[in-house]
C-alpha cells in the first residue's frame, strides 16, 4: 500500500459534433496510505475518469499522478501496481472461482510460487465468505457471490491502491447493505488504500474515511463524512448528503438570517416542529410512512419542506404546524456557505 497523489490533473474529451468537454478540471487529491477515499457525484461528474486516470487507462492533458512519491503519469497501467474493480464483474466463465482469483497472480511477469498463490486465494476467500465456492464454476454463483469474486481477484494482489468503480451498484439493496459493512471491515483489517467511486451517498457515508464531492469535473470539498454532512462549503455539497435532502429555503422565510444570506439550509435536525400555528406556520400536505421513520411533507407559504417525523406523531394532511429553526446553515447568492 502507498500514498497516491493526484496533482492538478485536467482531462478533456473530444466528441464528433461538439467542442471538447472538460471531464476533469484541475483536480488535486492525496489519498494517504491506508485511507478509504470515496468520490461522490452524479453521473457525468468526472468520477470514473479520475479513477481511470489513476489507473493509467487515460492520460491527463495536464497535471501528474504520483504513487508512493514516484511520478507514474507516463507509465502504462501494468507498471503502476494498481488493482481495478469494475462495476460489471467480468469473470472468466470457463474458470473456477479459485482460478479466477488466482489469475492475476499467475501472470508471467509476477512469478508467484504456486503454494503462495493457494494460500493467498484461500485467505481472501475466507474474508469474503466464499471459501466453500472455490471449486465452483464462476457462472454457478449468484450475483452477490460473483461480485465478491471480482473484489477477491483484486484483493489477492497487494497493489499500491485499489481503484473501485461502483462495485456494489449491480447488487440488490439487501446485499449491497451487507457488502458495505464487509468491504469496510476488510479494508480496515488489511489496511488497504482505496479510491472508490459512487453516486450513492449511503455508500460514501458509511465506508469512506474521507469523501470527495465532485461536480462537473471539479472537487468541491473533501472531508470526513461528518465534516461534509455538518459543515458543507456550499449549497450544492449540502444537497449531496442527507435523507431527506436538505431544505433550501429563501432567507426571508424565517427571521434572523445573517447579512448577505440568500438561502437557508435546513436539515431535519435543524427544524423543530410543534402542533398548531406560530411565527412561521406550515400545512402538512402528505406523510410518507417509510417504516422506521416518516417523511413529513409541508407547504410553507408555497415552498415545499420535507422533514422527518416520529412515526407515532399523530399528524395528518391538512394539519397546521409551526416551525422553528435550530442552528441551520446559511448560503449567499452564489451558494457559498456563510457563518451563522
Amino acid at each position, binding site marked *: 500500500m502507498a500514498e497516491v497523489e493526484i496533482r492538478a490533473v485536467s482531462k478533456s474529451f473530444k466528441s464528433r459534433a461538439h467542442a471538447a468537454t472538460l471531464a476533469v478540471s484541475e483536480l488535486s487529491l492525496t489519498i494517504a496510505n491506508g485511507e478509504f477515499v470515496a468520490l461522490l457525484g452524479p453521473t457525468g461528474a468526472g468520477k470514473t475518469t479520475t479513477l481511470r486516470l489513476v489507473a493509467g487507462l487515460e492520460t491527463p492533458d495536464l497535471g501528474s499522478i504520483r504513487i508512493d512519491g514516484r511520478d507514474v503519469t507516463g507509465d502504462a497501467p501494468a507498471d503502476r501496481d494498481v488493482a481495478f474493480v469494475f462495476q460489471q464483474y467480468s469473470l472468466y466463465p470457463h474458470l473456477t472461482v479459485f482460478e479466477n482469483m488466482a489469475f492475476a497472480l499467475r501472470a508471467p511477469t509476477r512469478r508467484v510460487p504456486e503454494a503462495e498463490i493457494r494460500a493467498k486465494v484461500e485467505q481472501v476467500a475466507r474474508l469474503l465468505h466464499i471459501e466453500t465456492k472455490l471449486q465452483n464454476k464462476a457462472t454457478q454463483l449468484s450475483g452477490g457471490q460473483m461480485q465478491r469474486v471480482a473484489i477477491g481477484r483484486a484483493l489477492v494482489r497487494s497493489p499500491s491502491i485499489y481503484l473501485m468503480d461502483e462495485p456494489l451498484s449491480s447488487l440488490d439493496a439487501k446485499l449491497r447493505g451487507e457488502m458495505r459493512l464487509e468491504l469496510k471491515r476488510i479494508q480496515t483489517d488489511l489496511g488497504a488504500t482505496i479510491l472508490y467511486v459512487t*453516486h450513492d451517498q*449511503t455508500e460514501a*457515508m*458509511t465506508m469512506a474515511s474521507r469523501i470527495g464531492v465532485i461536480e462537473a469535473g471539479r472537487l468541491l470539498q473533501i472531508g470526513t463524512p461528518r465534516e461534509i454532512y455538518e459543515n458543507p462549503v456550499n449549497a450544492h455539497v449540502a444537497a449531496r448528503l442527507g*435523507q431527506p435532502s436538505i431544505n433550501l429555503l429563501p432567507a426571508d422565510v424565517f427571521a434572523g438570517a445573517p447579512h448577505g444570506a440568500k438561502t437557508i439550509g435546513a436539515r431535519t435536525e435543524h427544524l423543530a416542529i410543534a402542533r398548531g400555528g406560530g411565527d412561521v406556520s406550515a400545512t402538512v400536505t*402528505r406523510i410518507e410512512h417509510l*417504516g*422506521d421513520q416518516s417523511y413529513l411533507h409541508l407547504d410553507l407559504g408555497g415552498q415545499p419542506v420535507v422533514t422527518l417525523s416520529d412515526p*407515532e406523531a399523530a399528524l395528518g394532511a391538512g394539519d397546521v404546524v409551526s416551525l422553528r429553526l435550530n442552528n441551520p446553515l446559511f448560503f449567499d447568492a452564489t451558494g457559498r456557505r456563510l457563518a451563522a
Partner: protein
Amino acid sequence: MAQIKVEALDKSFGTFHAVRSASFTVEDGQFLCLLGPSGCGKTTTLRMIAGLELPTAGTIRLGGEDVTMNRASARDIAFVFQLFALYPHMNVRRNIGFPLKCEGVSAAEIDRRVVEAARILRISDLLDRPVSGLAGGDRQRVALGRAIVRKTKCFLMDEPLGALDTEMREAMIRELRALHDRLGATTVYVTHDQLEAMAMADIIAVMNNGVVEQVASPRDIYDRPASLFVADFIGSPPMNFLPFHAALAAGAQSVALGDRDVAIPAAREAVAESDLVLGVRPEHVRFSDRGTVRGEVYGAEYLGTTQIVTVTTRYGALKARTPANLAFRTGETVGLDFRPDTLSLFHKASGRAIRTALHEGGVHG
C-alpha cells in the same frame, strides 16, 4: 376510473407455476404496489391485468366487468414499461401523441391533449426536442406522457424507475405520487424496491414464489408483517431475527430467550413447543448496560441523522438504529434491549406470524 379486482389468479408456463391463486382489490383511484424479488410473479400478474398474458385460472374485473379473456386493446388501460421504448426518430410531441394517432383521434384534439399532458408533467418546453438528447428523467416523463394522454381508467407500470440513478429515482418517486394525486387514476405499480413501494403506495401486495403473502397499507406491512419473508423484505436494514425454541400459551406476555425473559405483545394463540423466531426492527433495539442480549460491536455506519450499529451476538449479527451522536468502538461489549410492544413472533418452519396484541392495531395509537 375504475376498481381492479383480481380473484384467485393462476398462471403456469409449462411446469412452472408463476402465479398461485393471487387475489387483491385496487379500489377506484388507489395506488397499489406489487412488490417482490425478481421471479416472484409480480410482472406476470401485471401482464395478466393488462391482457398481455392469459391466466390459467381465475378472473380479472375492471370496474365490475369481467375482462379476463378480453384482448389488451379492449381493456381501458395504459401500460408504462421499465425500458421506455420511445420512437427515436420522432420528437417529444409526436412521441406523446402517437397512441392517440393510432386510435384515429383528430389532429386538433391530439394537439390539445399533448399540450395538457406536457403541462402536467412539466415538460412543455421540451415538446419540439428530439427524444435522443433527453436526460433519463425527461425520457421517463415522455413515456408517462404517452400513458396519460390516453385518459384511461387505469395505469399499469412495470418498474418505470428501474433504469434511473438513485438521485433521479428519488425525485421521480415524489413526482409520480404527486401526479397520481392530481390524476386519481387507479394504478398498479410493479417494483422490487421496497422504498419505492413504501413511499408511493396506498396498498402494497408483497409477492414471493408466485404467492401474495400480504396485502396491506405500507404502515401495516412494516409494523405487522404477516410472514418472515415480508418482515425480511421490508425495511432497510431489515428486521432482526432471533431464533428460539419454546411453547407459547395464549395470553403469554413474555418468552424465554436463553436465560432471560423478554416481554412481548400478549399472545392471542397457543403454540406447541417448536422452533420460533422473535423479530425486532433495528429502531426498536436499545443499548443498555443490563440488556437482555449481550454482544460485541462489529461496526457502525454513519448516516448523518442516524447510524446503524451492527452487534455480533449468540443469535447472529443484530442491527440497531441509533442517533448519530452516540459513539461506539469496534469490539466493545454492549447490552441490548427491545421495545416490547413492537416485537413480532413467527413460526420458523412455515414463516407465518403468530397472532399477538400487536395485530389488534394501536401500536401507533
